[in-house]
């Protein structure tokens, strides 16, 4: 088990190096050139000279890369063009928002998807099964941004049940020590604010969670169908265990393996999807931040954002792999 974790950690190194090279080359490939891209339209000869000095842009490319790596490793992602603030400062505000949204979406997807898939498998071949398959296929065929627009139209614009934009109502005054607004509200002991934050999360989370929901339901169904016919399930039934115990201890436990993997694989989709969902709901997270950055040609933000999001993605995949190994007895023992 330890060897597996170490091996997996070592595999991380080439990926992170490759990722940094890719982003490093990307800045140099931008039409305006690196110095201009990092400074924006207000660049003066002095500031350009300063950037060239900082990144050693007149030096050989491998030295440039080394300097770049050192700067990034020190947590310096430059300053934004739009606000002239450090990119990391804005990252600290934006990232928790997206994580909060992604977790809410994941919660929605698993809490609904696993039971749905389980029921579909138990009622294999019935109309419940068929309609769940059709529903999940339609679910993965609806673009996230379209679903987000639909939800917003019905529940926010027409019915007025939920807010249309943002993370929290403007009139609510709340300190933000963590930038996770749900936690901030709980720290402040302000239940009204907490409920307000939740209300702002509901529609974006449903939109973002729709594809993971469909995928989770399908995988759960397939996994349960697979496990159901295993010898150990038959044995458990044969020795007279109550059906519910067999369901939970034998079928569900083992079906959980592929389900965890798939949920982990959804992370990339969640991060991509967050860009679109946040845009529809003007939710101030990583997504809207990056989209604004594209529109304003704010390349330091784009660079820092892509680097950071990919880094998180790689780490999450690592955690998924390790937790998979922890759940799987076959890997755990060896």
């Amino acid at each position, binding site marked *: 088990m330890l060897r597996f974790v170490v091996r997996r950690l070592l595999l991380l190194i*080439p*990926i992170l190096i490759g990722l940094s090279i890719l982003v490093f080359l990307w800045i140099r490939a931008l*039409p305006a050139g690196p110095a201009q891209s990092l400074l924006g339209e207000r660049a003066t000869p002095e500031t350009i000279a300063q950037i060239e000095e900082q990144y050693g842009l007149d030096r050989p490319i491998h030295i440039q890369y080394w300097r770049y790596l050192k700067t990034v490793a020190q947590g310096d992602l430059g300053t934004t063009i739009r606000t002239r603030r450090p990119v990391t400062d804005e990252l600290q505000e934006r990232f928790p928002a997206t994580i909060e949204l992604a977790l809410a979406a994941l919660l929605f997807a698993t809490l609904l998807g696993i039971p749905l898939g389980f029921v579909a498998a138990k009622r294999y071949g019935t109309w419940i099964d068929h309609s769940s398959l059709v529903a999940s*296929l339609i679910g993965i065929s609806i673009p996230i941004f*379209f679903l987000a627009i639909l939800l917003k139209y019905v529940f926010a614009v027409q019915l007025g049940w939920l807010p249309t934009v943002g993370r929290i109502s403007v009139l609510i005054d709340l300190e933000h020590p963590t930038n996770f607004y749900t936690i901030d509200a709980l720290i402040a002991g302000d239940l009204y604010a907490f409920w307000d934050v939740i209300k702002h999360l509901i529609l974006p989370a449903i939109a973002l969670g729709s594809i993971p929901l469909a995928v989770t339901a399908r995988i759960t169904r397939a996994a349960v169908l697979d496990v159901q016919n295993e010898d150990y399930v038959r044995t458990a039934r044969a020795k007279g265990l109550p059906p519910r115990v067999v369901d939970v201890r034998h079928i569900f436990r083992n079906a959980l393996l592929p389900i965890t993997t798939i949920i982990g694989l959804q992370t990339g989709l969640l991060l*991509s999807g967050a860009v679109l969902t946040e845009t*529809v709901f003007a939710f101030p997270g990583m997504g809207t931040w990056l989209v604004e950055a594209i*529109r304003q040609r704010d390349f330091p933000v784009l660079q820092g954002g892509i680097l950071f999001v*990919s880094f998180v*993605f790689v780490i999450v995949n690592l955690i998924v792999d390790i937790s998979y190994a922890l759940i799987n007895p076959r890997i755990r023992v060896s």
Partner: protein
Amino acid sequence: MSVAQVEAREVQLEALPSGLWADTWRRLRHNPAAIVGFVLVGIFLFVAIFAPLIAPEDPRSGDLSRLGGTCCPGPSADYWFGLDQQGRDVFSRIVYGARYSLLIGIVSVAVGLSVGLFFGAIAGYFGGWVDSLIMRCTDIMLSIPGLLLAIGIVAVLGQGIWQIMIAVGVTQIPIFARLLRGSILATRESDYVLAARSVGVPKRSILASHILPNSISPVIVQGTLALATAIIDVAALGFLGLGPQDPATPEWGTMLTDTTRYLQTAPHLALIPGVAIVISVLGFNLIGDGLREALDPKFRGRG
């Protein structure tokens, strides 16, 4: 099923050609979901190909005077899908939009598929350090969430139809590369290849009739599903304002961009392009799903 039915089915099975593709096609025809998929994709193809004959108006130019000061008139007998904020006929734009979605979708999947298969085949065939190198490269590409990778590429290449095709295509390269490699590796070691080798089947016919047909079917399934993903990704880029450079281009995703402003008064502006995307994507997904089942050896031979 009664005994007589089973027997009739068996007779029927014996009489049918047993080739992989004939078998696949036969079972696809018996899958209602796949048929719905073919119908949806058929409509989509028909509209895309015959767009100039179907669309009553020019999709690019509008007439503001037709709006009558409001935004925007909904579906009517004159304008089936209503008018947009610039007085353009939405029906004509949807019809022409099918062309863009289809063209961009097919070309980007072709880019991803051909480059991906090339590297996947090399990795699977040579193994060793070549394999490791290619796989680490796909790891790196896969570590950037797809849409962000596409955004980054568009930022470098600039906006435009070809740039979108490349951007979306590149995000699909690692998927196809890994798929074919894994598939070749699994097939190479399988029992039936071993069996064929042990009874003295020549290497070339093992490759041609055992390894490739069995390695390629997941690629075909993925190719169909990739078309669905590509259409969504293209629309997503358009929605984010990274679509074709000319904003008058009737691209479905771009058509959705500004509609949230008119949601209250003109929901059809968001609904109609959205439904068009869903229908075409659903079509490819249904076919892909049907193909997967039809090509799965576990199901083969059953009705």
